[in-house]
């Protein structure tokens, strides 16, 4: 993927031609930069919603492929960007688990019996359950499709994890969660320092001639590291105090009462709504609306309470056209899949018995295309270590050399 390099290859001619007029506008739009994490999450949630609305293995496979494509083309080289493979493995495990559960505990519904495994009836305490028995094709197919749907949703979320910068996401938390968000930021920045602390303590132990391995060494290292971390927290608190962290506006008693009433009232609504949702006798229509209304009221109270937190943002992430496009792609994919389900439900949920070969619908293909568009629409990610192929000095014309020098140090500061 040459496009991941700071200078996309496709841009070369454009800048070369418009060397006088164009270099400000066109390269600006394609400068490597991290997209707003919210845009990636919206896109991924849209894809996950699309995946949740079909069990068609072809469609699900395409959605997973789309997520992988976008990740490969647009991820940076930060540690979290490398976790996508783990999600693929996890998805495979889920599919396998579903199928294995169907084999072991299936109960053997279905006509096309593939094999008959010996049955193992369990003892009295697990009455009514037997292991193995006949294994039907319908059963396996049902387990596979269900598992694949869950795995596809998971992979979509994994794509968001790989693409969105969590540190920038933390900047977008609402004001009421500012304190907790700050604690998480502290945790994220202290965690790497712990490694350095461990190395330092180990080196000090070695200098004193103590062994560097074994259980006693573990104790001798862990406790100083913990004490060091606790001392560091006090120093950090002093630094935060001196920089004005944790300043809050004085809140009038009336406003505090209002926010409290909103939060409490909303929570009572949530409890009642949940009860209504699970109640066997009550009216069905009350549960979900009440639950949602309660949530809205409580969240309104929370946001109101958060307004008293005054904070300034350093380099705030803005929603620019690229962000809107990427998020819109996710929403479009979800909407198209839902629409496809309305038009041809039997193709999006292919029947398990009798087993049929899955087919794609044009709408589903459109949804997949919309999901794949961010691979080209999103700006290339900033890389700390540019992985572009070495450019011969003689061939390095002005159009290639100029942009590389300027964006690299600037974007390096974003992380």
């Amino acid at each position, binding site marked *: 993927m040459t496009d991941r390099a700071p200078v996309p290859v496709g841009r070369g001619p454009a800048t070369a031609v418009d060397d006088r007029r164009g270099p400000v506008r066109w390269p600006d739009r394609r400068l490597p930069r991290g997209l707003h994490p919210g845009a990636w999450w919206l896109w991924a949630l849209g894809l996950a919603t699309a995946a949740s609305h079909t069990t068609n293995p072809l469609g699900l496979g395409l959605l997973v492929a789309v997520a992988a494509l976008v990740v490969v083309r647009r991820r940076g080289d930060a540690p*979290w960007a490398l976790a996508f493979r783990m999600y693929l493995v996890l998805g495979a495990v889920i599919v396998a688990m579903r199928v294995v559960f169907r084999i072991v505990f299936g109960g053997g519904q279905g006509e096309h019996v593939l094999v008959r495994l010996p049955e193992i009836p369990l003892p009295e305490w697990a009455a009514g359950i037997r292991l193995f028995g006949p294994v039907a094709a319908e059963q396996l197919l049902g387990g596979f499709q269900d598992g694949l749907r869950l795995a596809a949703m998971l992979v979509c979320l994994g794509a968001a994890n790989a693409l969105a910068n969590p540190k920038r996401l933390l900047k977008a938390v609402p004001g009421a969660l500012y304190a907790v968000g700050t604690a998480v930021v502290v945790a994220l920045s202290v965690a790497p320092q712990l490694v350095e602390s461990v190395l330092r303590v180990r080196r000090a132990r070695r200098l004193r001639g103590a062994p560097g391995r074994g259980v006693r060494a573990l104790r001798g290292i*862990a406790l100083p590291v913990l004490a060091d971390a606790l001392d560091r927290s006090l120093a950090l608190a002093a630094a935060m*105090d001196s920089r004005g962290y944790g300043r809050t506006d004085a809140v009038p008693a009336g406003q505090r009462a209002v926010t409290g009433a909103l939060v409490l009232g909303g929570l009572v609504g949530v409890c009642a709504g949940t009860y209504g949702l699970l109640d066997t006798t009550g009216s069905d229509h009350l549960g979900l609306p009440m639950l949602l209304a309660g949530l809205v009221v409580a969240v309104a109270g929370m946001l109101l309470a958060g307004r008293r937190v005054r904070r300034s943002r350093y380099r705030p992430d803005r929603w620019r056209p690229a962000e809107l496009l990427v998020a819109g792609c996710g929403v479009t994919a979800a909407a198209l899949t839902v629409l496809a389900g309305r038009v041809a439900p039997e193709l999006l949920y292919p029947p398990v018995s009798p087993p049929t070969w899955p087919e794609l619908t044009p709408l589903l293909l459109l949804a997949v295309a919309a999901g794949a568009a961010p691979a080209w629409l999103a700006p290339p990610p900033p890389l700390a270590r540019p992985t572009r192929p070495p450019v011969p000095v003689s061939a390095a014309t002005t159009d290639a050399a100029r942009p590389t020098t300027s964006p690299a140090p600037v974007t390096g500061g974003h992380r």
Partner: protein
Amino acid sequence: MSVLRVTPRTALVLVLASAAALATFTWPFFIPAGPETTARTDEAPLVFLVVLPVLVALVLAELSSGGIDSKALAMLGVLAAVNAALRPLGAGTAGIETVFFLLVLAGRVFGPGFGFLLGSTSLFASALLTAGVGPWLPFQMLAASWIGLGAGLLPARLRGRAEIAVLAGYGVLAAYGYGLLMNLWFWPFSVGADTQLSYVAGAPVLENLHRFAVFTAVTSTFGWDTGRAITTAVAIVLAGPAVLTALRRAARRAAFGAPVIFAAPDPPAAPATVPAGDGASRPEPSPSGVATRARSVVAPRGTPT
């Protein structure tokens, strides 16, 4: 001692949100049978997936609404970092869980509100570090938060060996409880609808409980959960006394409870005074005047804002 003051209003919010959140774990037991049940069993998990993060956010916001002392905030961040660094140590090996031990001890020392926040922030930071953000995260955060909260609510009088014994016992309970809750959450997702281990909509609670018990016994109780319980208990017994001492020393140095008053700015030698109490009688000098900083909003006169 309690680092974070839990007001009655906060406690009420905590109880209400916990009650609603418990339903998001246990709904398979109670889901009604009916003509529209299939649709509902499809949508119920998704509804709860949306509801729970909001509930967790509400409780966290409410707990921190009184304004967290910057010392408590830094302590929270550092302990969450230690927890997040400990977590991957055990994740690969079957059943070795290294998070709960520090969570229980810190909840014990710093109080229930702090324990609750520490449970959430630890798992959140850990998920961000390992890119493990997903629908399971709010459930894990809440379960870990309950563990920290419970550790803070243990009887305060105990000291010495009795304390370690109680904490280790609580650690075992918490480890099994966490495993049960996580299994319960994942139960509808992991086995699907039509096996003998799946929940049955509309069946009596006892029958579903029975099915769940078999499911959890088959999948994890004897392997993962027991391993987790043993690890937690052993870690508390072995390292507990030393870690408790370190945490208590840090709490004393930070002097969380010491009220801060500003003296008149006229005498230049004494800009701030800590009244006699926990903070004044401590042996070590506080680093760079942390203990004497204001936790209130008002800056002293003459300070540029």
